[in-house]
């Protein structure tokens, strides 16, 4: 078996340096259409989805609804700015909660995470898988994936919460010890995305359990998920909706 040891050693370090330094490799994030305020006003999304004949226009207007269809940038519309970056996580109801977080400082470098698949398409799950793999390796941050919610501090929920997953989701949430934090990752988990709300899906995780941190994206790239976890423990500021600073932009 020593050949595997050598193989591992020869490969060397592959992990990203984020959050100590911004990740500059190409292809770590698909980027997002953003305006200066972070919101995507109605007139900026020329291709709202979810419109069903006979029902009022459910035009998607928020950055939380962006499903990366690329129709805005690849069509004739030149009003949309496409921005790189991946620090998209924000605190849900930040105003109401102020800056206090449920998890204290003792969790900031020791965090156990349980993922729940509440009906995700597989892309989100694939991205969450990557955070524990060598290229991102959350273990270097003191974050770990745990197989059971009973050992978890963070519940990382992906998917719009399908009807059949409501019961398992609530049960997993109740099984967690306090203090606990819920991170909703991906457009589906935030708003129901393309699938919800409807007869088989909810309109996101917050309809069923309280959500603390949200990260948009379809799917959110691994670094955005890591940013969400860092926001959950207060090691990174949440997405402010501001343009990246000049130095950050250079790095990007």
């Amino acid at each position, binding site marked *: 078996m020593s050949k595997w040891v050598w193989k591992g050693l020869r490969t060397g370090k592959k992990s990203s340096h984020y959050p100590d330094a911004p990740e500059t490799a190409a292809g770590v994030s698909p980027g997002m259409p953003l305006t200066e305020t972070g919101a995507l006003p109605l007139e900026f999304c020329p291709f709202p989805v979810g419109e069903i004949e006979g029902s009022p226009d459910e035009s998607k207007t928020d950055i939380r609804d962006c499903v990366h269809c690329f129709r805005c940038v690849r069509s004739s519309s030149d009003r949309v700015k496409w921005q790189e970056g991946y620090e998209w996580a924000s605190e849900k109801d930040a105003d109401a909660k102020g800056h206090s977080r449920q998890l204290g400082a003792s969790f900031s470098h020791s965090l156990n995470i349980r993922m729940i*698949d509440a*009906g*995700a*398409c597989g*892309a989100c799950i*694939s991205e969450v898988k990557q955070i524990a793999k060598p290229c991102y390796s959350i273990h270097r941050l003191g974050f770990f994936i745990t197989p059971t919610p009973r050992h978890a501090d963070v519940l990382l929920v992906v998917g719009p919460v399908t009807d059949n*997953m409501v*019961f398992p989701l609530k049960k997993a949430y109740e099984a967690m010890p306090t203090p606990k934090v819920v991170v909703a990752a991906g457009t589906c988990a935030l708003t129901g995305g393309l699938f919800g709300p409807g007869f088989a*899906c909810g309109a996101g995780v917050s309809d069923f359990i309280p959500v603390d941190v949200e990260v948009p994206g*379809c799917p959110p790239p691994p670094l955005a998920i890591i940013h969400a976890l860092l926001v959950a423990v207060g090691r990174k500021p949440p997405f402010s909706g501001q343009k990246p600073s000049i130095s950050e932009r250079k790095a990007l």
Partner: protein
Amino acid sequence: MRSQIERIAPGSETFICNGLPVTFVDCAPDELQNVCERLTAELGYRFATLVVEEAHCDWQLGYIFCGGHDLQGGLVRVSLKASGARPIIPSISAIVHAADWHEREAEDLFGLVFEGHPKLGDFVLHEHTPEGINPMRSDFDPAAELPSEDICPWRPGRIVQTPGAFAMPIGPVYSDFAESAHFLLETVGEDVIRVIPRFFYKYRGLEKLAEGRRVEDVLLLAERFSGTSAFAHSLAFCQAVESICEAKLPARAPALRTFFAELERFRYHVGVIADICGSTALAVATSQAAILEEELLRLCCKYAGHRYLFGLNIPGGLSLNVEDEACRVLTGEVGSIAKRLVDLMEMLRFSSSFLDRLEQVGAIAKKDATDYGLVGPIARASGVVRDLRIALPYAAYGKDSLSFSAPGEEEGDGYARLRVFFNEAMQSVEIMRQIAESLPPGEVRVPRFDIKGGVSLGWAEAPCGAAFHWIRVRNDGRVARYRVTPPSFTNWHGFHLAAENFAFQDFPIIMATFGLSNAECDR
């Protein structure tokens, strides 16, 4: 072949559509079983999908078959008409076992009664949804909330009754990153006697959501119901729409689509190889394969804008023209990743602890694979070498300039599946190389795409097997009915064959060697 079908079903009509024979057979209910049996047993057709359409209690059922013995038979649609609130349809699943789950699904979602089917009832909608709720019917409002009943948790109908027997539940929330699904393993200690799978935890009602939406919005659904094989599914969908609208694509579009479909297959298979290594707890190999997977995801994003190739396929071509030079560079980078994959496989081939967990574990016999109509790498590992890229060529696959074959194995065990995944991945790189060398110049989309009404079937060989997308578009450009038969749905049906009679600790490994997606199955 045409005369043979004529002999089985007099009055059938055959058309040639895009060089492919398509036969329509109108069938009375009492002839259905006979026609289906002779199509599959005598002419070697295989069941592809069951399409149910309902409008105000008028029913149309389409049993679609494809292939034929020499793969020259094209497609056959056996149509059946019925009327009434709950019509009784003869079940064909005793004859064509591949139709088993299709009938269960149609019974659950439409309220059709399949006479003679041994197991109907809760399938897609779980037990907390009252009986008699049929969301796929035209009178069901997709915005309405499903009624829910408070009842005791699910129990299987019967469990094994021998001394020392017990049932071990797994899921829906289990393991590190597993997708939601439930398996009840019945055992008397070590060997799993019976596997009772329970899917559709992730049922999002894709087919119902598509109804009444614009074609370009349904494309987003087709792309995102299974994110890890998004390109293959959006390709099948776009081909169906283009066939309705009789769009003539510039030659560069099918070539580039083939190129990216193979890139996606390569990435998917590398991911499956990483999962197989992970299931056997071979940490270094898992990491190595995961690094390759991440590098491929980054390449997808760098050259096509999105890590899972979302937003690339559009009806009428591609939304992005990737330059010849970029394709060549991309092929070169993928080629160097493939070299490292070869090194990894070479090491795996000589790791006895790894091979012990895969060899002769989770074997599926060729006959079982045929009876269950298994598709993709799993079927090919059991000696059923069928591939839509060859059987029903689409995009650039039928071109003479493109030479490739579907790799197959005979043993049907976990190691055979691993080898098929590996060989297919290498084949994908080869196809990409061939295409990058001879990309036709020009545009990648039609200048103007007008949506017309009509019916069509689109298909693609997704990474885990044959995917069929059947669509009916109304004249106003909105979708009337959309039916998806993903490969995972077909293959999970046969999963118990592999897992039964093997030890408990083999279960996660067998599951990893299947490499299926629950999101794709559940829709």
